């Protein structure tokens, strides 16, 4: 069990997640283009999905989301759902391509991040919070998505490393990251 923990993606995700949550709580509380907090943890979850496919993206999103919830103080599990979905969506839409370029990975990362951020108010409404669907979502979602696209050249290789994907040219290898095992 210990060996599988070391060899699996969890330890790497945890280490990288710690740094990213720390950055999210410091640097990215100030760096607010158009008044929107850039969600770099969500960006990594989506990038991991774009690199490792939808199951890997869901796993990365779940782990990173839990760390985000623990670090930021949001209801525990809420970001695990949204980031899990972000990673899943980014991984799922990679299936439309056979050969991927870096700009396609960036696009998929952005779309995954947009899906994850769009789900945040849905989950908040689900747990009973009110007034979460505001017109500002039309600003928040595109900014988060574009920011994820911008960091994707760095985050896709990082996600591949975290998820231990050794696919050639970054083509998602769904067999390599099996969260059931």
């Amino acid at each position, binding site marked *: 069990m210990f060996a599988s923990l070391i060899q699996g993606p969890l330890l790497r995700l945890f280490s990288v997640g710690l740094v990213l949550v720390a950055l999210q709580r*410091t640097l990215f*509380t100030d760096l607010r283009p158009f008044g929107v907090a850039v969600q770099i943890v969500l960006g990594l979850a989506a990038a991991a999905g774009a690199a490792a496919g939808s*199951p890997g993206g869901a*796993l990365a999103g*779940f782990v990173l989301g839990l760390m985000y919830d623990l670090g930021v103080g949001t209801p525990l599990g809420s970001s695990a759902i949204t980031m899990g979905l972000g990673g899943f969506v980014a991984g799922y839409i990679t299936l439309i391509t056979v050969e991927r370029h870096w700009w396609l990975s960036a696009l998929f990362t952005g779309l995954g991040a947009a899906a994850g951020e769009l789900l945040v*108010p849905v989950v908040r409404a689900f747990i009973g919070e009110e007034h979460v669907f505001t017109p500002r979502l039309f600003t928040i979602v595109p900014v988060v998505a574009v920011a994820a696209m911008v960091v994707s050249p760095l985050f896709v290789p990082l996600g591949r490393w975290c998820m231990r994907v050794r696919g050639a040219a970054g083509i998602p290898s769904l067999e390599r990251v*099996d969260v059931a095992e």
Partner: protein
Amino acid sequence: MGIYTPGRRRAIALLLLTSILLLTLDLRGNQILDAARNGFDKIIQPFETAAEVVSRPVQNAWRGINDYERLDEEVQRLQEQVDAQTADLVTAQAVIIENQQLLALNDLDALSDYPTVIATVVGQGPTNIDQIIEINKGSNDGIQVGMAVLTTAGLVGKVTAPVEPDRARIMLLTDSRYSVDVKLVPAAPPPPTTTSTTLPATTTTLSPAPAVPGETTTTTDDPSDTGTTIAEPAPETTTPPADPATTTTTVPEVATTTTINIDLVRETGGFAGQGEGELPAVFYLDNTPSLGGFAVDDLVFTSGSQDSLAPANIPVGRVVNVIERTTSEGPLLEIEPFVNLDSLYFVRVVLYQPGAEDDAETEAGD
């Protein structure tokens, strides 16, 4: 081979169910999860300190690029405001001192009775949904969850979990989860309400025994007890009886004027945030037109009720819109906060615990 084997589907479903389970446990309050959160805070602390050091130049550059012009304009605007308000300030300070002396004389609680901690705002919340800021003081300074936070302009919000030893998070009053009991005070003292009533003329027929023919029957109303002024009545007339056995007395119409001095506090209600970009609102009001109703520019203060987390008489904001709804729902008032929440640099945490919590602690101690 299929893309999603049953094993993978099960794993994804398991992740989703685990998230929902954790969410449910966390919302219901779970000590293990709270301990996990505290533990994670301790683990991440060194990383956060390092991130702060590393990212400070980037932060400073970003602030310099984004805030310079805005700050320059704001300095000019504020300088004009300061000039204009200097005279008002002196008058206001005199009124505040007088008010505090009166409260002390009458043995009433004043906001200045409670100890406070001044803190610097060090950051905003990392999410795009929650309206949260971070300050550089925490439980080491006596700050606890729920304490009211204000500036000299008025209420800012309340302390929310988690509170770390040297850092705390403030939920702004625009957050959709924020609520506090408030009272409404008219911006200008209302004029006394005057109502006039005219009592109809009455005719009384008396038996001859107690009445002496030709004598006038007089009725006296003492208005001093009721605040009711009775206009000077026309002289009563005694009709000489056709039948000498009876006396008929006719009291003419009497006009009365009633003056009611309305209490300055019109109504109390629940103040709640509506999310970013939306004005907070006051609910649960009972519109009583006889008390003058609600009007734009009415002032909103914390009511300091038994269970309220904030002490009484903290200025909250001003009514900018009165929305009439159905009778059962009552009117809804949109409030513009006195505090400019976009430019908070220093805040004051009131180390106040409501009476209900004090009682609970006393009972727990017993």
